[in-house]
């Protein structure tokens, strides 16, 4: 479904990604792990078109995305729930969700079905539907960010650090929903610093260090891998 091959991204003289190869198959949930500054967010931003790769390719369903603008990638089926959630603060919960469906054309009455699905998944959002984005708690904002991305009926969902800045209990709640979501066979690329949580949800994972993939494999394998245990699971 999604494939990056030999992807290089630089910010000025700094190389953020040094030839990353990564694939996400249809219906798969793949985690991308790594420390702060390893290049995880940069990879997601390259996939959604916010940064231009210096070289390499990104393919969605076999089609190269080239220099396509982010808004066109969104319409092609890439939904990116960015780091720090980036809820529209002045829009209500409902408006945030509605505007999330911008990428889908001719939705008409089916918009309500999609809204109901998101509300069923995150009942808290239904209760808060007329509140403005800024007034939500961190956990609610995260739910809204995921719900907003789902409203685009994405082919690939990119999630950047959904547990960031959340109290452990809330992070767990978000991850329970993510596990449900992964079971619906939606294609997900999940960036996360909380390795244990991410490995519990994803079927496969990649480990990124200093802009390079240093490890990849099935989640169960990685969980027992000495290097992962030592560096990321704190065991």
């Amino acid at each position, binding site marked *: 479904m999604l494939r990056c091959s030999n992807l290089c991204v630089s910010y000025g003289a700094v190389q953020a990604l040094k030839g990353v190869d990564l694939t996400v198959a249809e219906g798969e949930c793949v985690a991308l792990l790594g420390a702060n500054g390893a290049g995880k967010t940069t990879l997601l931003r390259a996939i959604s*078109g*916010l940064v231009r790769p210096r070289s390499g390719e990104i393919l969605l369903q076999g089609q190269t995305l080239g220099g396509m603008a982010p808004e*066109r990638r969104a319409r092609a089926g890439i*939904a990116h729930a960015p780091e720090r959630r980036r809820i*529209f*603060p002045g829009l209500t919960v409902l408006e945030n969700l*509605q505007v999330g469906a*911008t990428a889908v054309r001719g939705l008409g009455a089916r918009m309500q079905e999609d809204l109901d699905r998101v509300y069923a998944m995150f009942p808290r959002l239904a209760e808060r539907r007329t509140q403005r984005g*800024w007034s939500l708690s961190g956990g609610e904002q995260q739910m809204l960010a995921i719900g907003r991305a789902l409203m685009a009926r994405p082919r690939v969902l990119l999630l950047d650090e959904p547990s960031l800045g959340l109290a452990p209990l809330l992070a767990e709640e978000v991850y329970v929903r993510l596990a449900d979501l992964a079971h619906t066979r939606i294609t997900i690329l999940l960036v996360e610093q909380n390795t244990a949580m991410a490995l519990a949800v994803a079927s496969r994972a990649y480990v990124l260090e200093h802009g390079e993939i240093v490890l990849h494999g099935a989640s169960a394998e990685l969980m027992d891998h000495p290097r992962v245990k030592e560096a990321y699971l704190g065991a």
Partner: protein
Amino acid sequence: MLTIQLIINALAVGSIYAVTALSFEIAYESTGVVNFSTGQLVTAGALVGASVTAIGPHLAPVAYLAVIVAMAALGLLFFVGAYLPLRNRPVLTVIIGTVAVGILVQNVSLLIWGPLPIAVASPVGNATIRLAGLVVPTHALFVILVTMVLILAVYFLLYRSPLGTQFRALAQDPETARLIGVPVMRLYALTWMLACALAGIAGLLLAPMWFVDVGLGDSLALKAFAAAIIGGFGSIPGAIIGGIAVGLAEVLGASYISSSYKDAIVFALMILFLLFRPQGLFGERVADRA
């Protein structure tokens, strides 16, 4: 009685300031650019309207349509010629670009229409009506009515339509708006078309009250700027209330204090706001921009 008549006149003048400030505000909200060519756009609108009404006074209502179309086209030109090439530069560069557009529009206007002032007829004529002992110019009522229609139209566009939600999303966080597929370039183009059309209509509303020459919009834009500051920069309701407030301060100040100080009164009010309440009446909540 006299006071009520003055207030109606103030509302009419204030309405024009409000429409101009609205033009200002829409461009600022969506693109972050303070449009310093607003005054010249107001003038261009008035001049286009003047040319249409000059063909025959019965065409005065058509003039409004013509101004909307012509100014929207100018807005598109503005977008393609000034905003697109400069949009990735620092915002100050774009703002200076709008100054250049203003100079260009003013000089082209001078070339086409010449320096002589032109009288423009109102679609409702220059009659007055007597209402319960009040003498009210029909054009003043017309201005208030048109402004209310415009405000309603902008309100529905921004707050009651899917397009409006996209507009506001874009204003609050352009990068995330792109991530969810908002066609940002199309919306920026629409923004400039709308801003120019509103400025043009403000000019046409003003035209029957003053003579129209190429400097018509300059002082109007300054007052609209004051209105935007008083109302709260970055707030659409603020632009409207600020416009009315400036109209009231000006007309009431002119008749109760001195007409030679009316501009000074408005700008003193603006300075007071800048000193003591810089966020204006409807100051934007910082969180809205977070």
